[in-house]
């Protein structure tokens, strides 16, 4: 009896640890595998796809950096990410806050209108979007991609900000009001700082979405000089090429800046996610 109990205790302690450990490793291993495999030669990779490289070589990376405009692509991608994120955060914060705090005619309709955006299958809507962008002369511009990235990022931002603001006691603003704070000041110097965690969350989620986005970048832009990383790296994957290590190197380069950012800020990111997550 006592032994069974002890074993139960042991199991209940060990099992969760073990399961979580296995899961965590499964989450990180693919990136590790991608990295060390990209250092292999093609035949070495085919001989054993899982083994570590015998004589690691960075040739693939050298080739990509010297032969392509990867730096230009990264610059474009960074610019698109930063600017669209800025728009998402500002507009998402404002709209989310307004929808959460104010009762007005059509409020629920407006809320649902924004949420509709989360359901839009963008790949299926590429034709009308392309028509719209070309007819209004908005394709192939430096801001072309920022618009859809910002607009399609709004719904989740509004959704998260709205529910977060609802968890903030209204007394916060009331106190500010009594102190004679104007509405604008209350909004930006009192409510905004309180919302920082959820905005951080939104920013994180959207940054990676925008960084990896492919379809808009392919269809709406034709200019070489505005090409983004996800589209650029497809140039390394010709139809008749099966050089996996090379493909892996290009994939890794594509996700590398995002990865660095993630691990450098992982603590804050997760903290922000936890603090900012939906409270129901």
């Amino acid at each position, binding site marked *: 009896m006592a032994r069974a109990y002890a074993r139960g205790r042991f199991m209940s302690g060990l099992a969760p640890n073990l399961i979580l450990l296995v899961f965590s490793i499964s989450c990180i291993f693919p990136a590790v595998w991608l990295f060390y495999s990209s250092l292999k030669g093609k035949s070495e990779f*085919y001989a054993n796809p899982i083994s570590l490289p015998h004589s690691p070589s960075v040739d693939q990376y050298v080739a990509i950096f010297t*032969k392509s*405009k990867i*730096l*230009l692509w*990264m*610059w*474009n991608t*960074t610019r698109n990410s930063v600017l669209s994120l800025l728009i998402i955060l500002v507009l998402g914060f404002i709209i989310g806050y307004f929808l959460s705090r104010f009762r007005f005619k059509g409020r629920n309709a407006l809320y649902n209108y924004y949420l509709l955006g989360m359901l839009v299958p963008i790949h299926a809507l*590429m*034709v009308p979007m*392309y*028509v719209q962008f*070309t*007819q209004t002369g908005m394709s192939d511009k430096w801001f072309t991609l920022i618009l859809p990235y910002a607009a399609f990022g709004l719904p989740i931002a509004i959704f998260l900000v709205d529910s977060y603001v609802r968890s903030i006691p209204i007394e916060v603003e009331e106190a500010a009001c009594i102190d004679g704070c104007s509405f604008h000041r209350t909004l930006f110097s009192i409510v905004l700082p309180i919302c920082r965690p959820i905005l951080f969350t939104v920013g994180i989620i959207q940054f990676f979405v925008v960084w990896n986005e492919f379809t808009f970048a*392919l*269809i709406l832009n*034709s200019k*070489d*000089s505005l090409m983004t990383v996800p*589209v650029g790296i*497809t*140039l*390394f*994957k*010709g*139809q*008749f*090429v*099966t050089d996996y290590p090379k493909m892996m190197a290009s994939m890794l380069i594509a996700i590398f800046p995002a990865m*660095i*950012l993630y691990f*450098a*800020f992982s603590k804050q990111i997760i903290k922000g996610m936890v603090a900012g997550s939906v409270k129901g």
Partner: protein
Amino acid sequence: MKTNKRLTVISLLLVLSIMLAACGSGNNGPKESNGSNGSSGSGKKVELTFSHYYLEEERPTSAEMDSYMTLVEKWEKDNPNVKLTQSVMSQADYSTKIQAQAAVNEMPDIFFLKGSWVGNFASNDLLMPINDELDKYEFKDKFRKGAFDAATQDGQIYGLPNQLSITSIVYYNEKMWKDIGYDSFPDNWDDINKAAAKFNEKGIAAISLGNKDKWPAESTILSTMGDRFTGADWTNSIISRDGKAKFTDPEFVNALDMMQKSTAAKIFNPDFNVISNAQAEEYYAQGKAAATIDGHWAISYLLNNASEDVLKQTKVAILPPVDGGKGEANTISGGAGWYVAINKNLTGEKRDAAMDFLFKTAGYDFSKVYMEKYGMAGPSLVDGVDMTKFPQLTQDFASLTSKVTFTPIYDMLMPGGIIETMNTGLQEVLNGTKTGKALAEQLQSAQDKL
């Protein structure tokens, strides 16, 4: 402490992004400024956009691309008054993008045109006919018979072919087949099935196939297999939609059933539906398959990638005939399937420049470079080239293809809707989860709706 670390990372990232920005604009600077200088400086520089799918990455392993791009580069040098802006994507992405551009009548000035798009694009008035220029072209007679078939709609010709697709060649490893008792690739399907069993015992596939992207089984096998059963008249009738031939005709159903039976006899690698065409070539090149059925593009691939052993043993053959087939035995699906075309809206000197580009890059010159540099046959006939300087495989390929008749390649000539249905259904037919008859009925009902 913590703040310090964070600050370091932030400042590092900042420095990095500034460097990126600097490099980025530095990298891109010359090309960009060139363009604006050019147009403002000389004032009269003609600007042309050119969209295609020849990725620089593929150039070393694609004779076709290298030959064509050599001519493009030469043309650019010869025409300094024209600024040619190229937009290059992978073939799949290119096919998507061009459809979007067609939707809004915003085609590039010059672009690659697939035979199966011609009907649709022409009826939407997107393509410039080139009949007049072609009639004046001094090498007009050098083009192969049928080279313009896929680019012709109501008598108008809409592009110059810049490749000759031969999609259904059997590449086989002679030694491997000798080892199991065949002097060459079998001339009947029974023997192939029997051989497959022997190869499978050794853990290798008789024929490698990579049908993940859905076109290879149809383009490289069914196009020829179908012809063996139906004959070319049937195919031409289907393409012209005169109603005489139907997909439900027993001959075509038999072809599908044959594909199913052969797959059930395990002549292909087990993962034929989940690997790409390139991976199937890789299987053969590594000696994991005794043969592969593939297009002309595999020549470049094998010459560059196959081990010396495999390459030395590689011979070419055509698909065997079938019992009771209506088609001739000595045919291969082949023909011009891709063209270079011009936007209908071009006028004046832009039009002239584009037209000149067309004939200088995709005309006879292309076939000449392609033949002289690589020993490969293009859409024009080029005589008097000494073949002996080329690799044995190239020579064998040339002598094989010079003796056969070309029959239509399905996906180059049939409309996209039919091909999509065929390709998708063929995956299931090969898996044994759909009967040939069911697919044929599906195809016919799609054909009826056109």
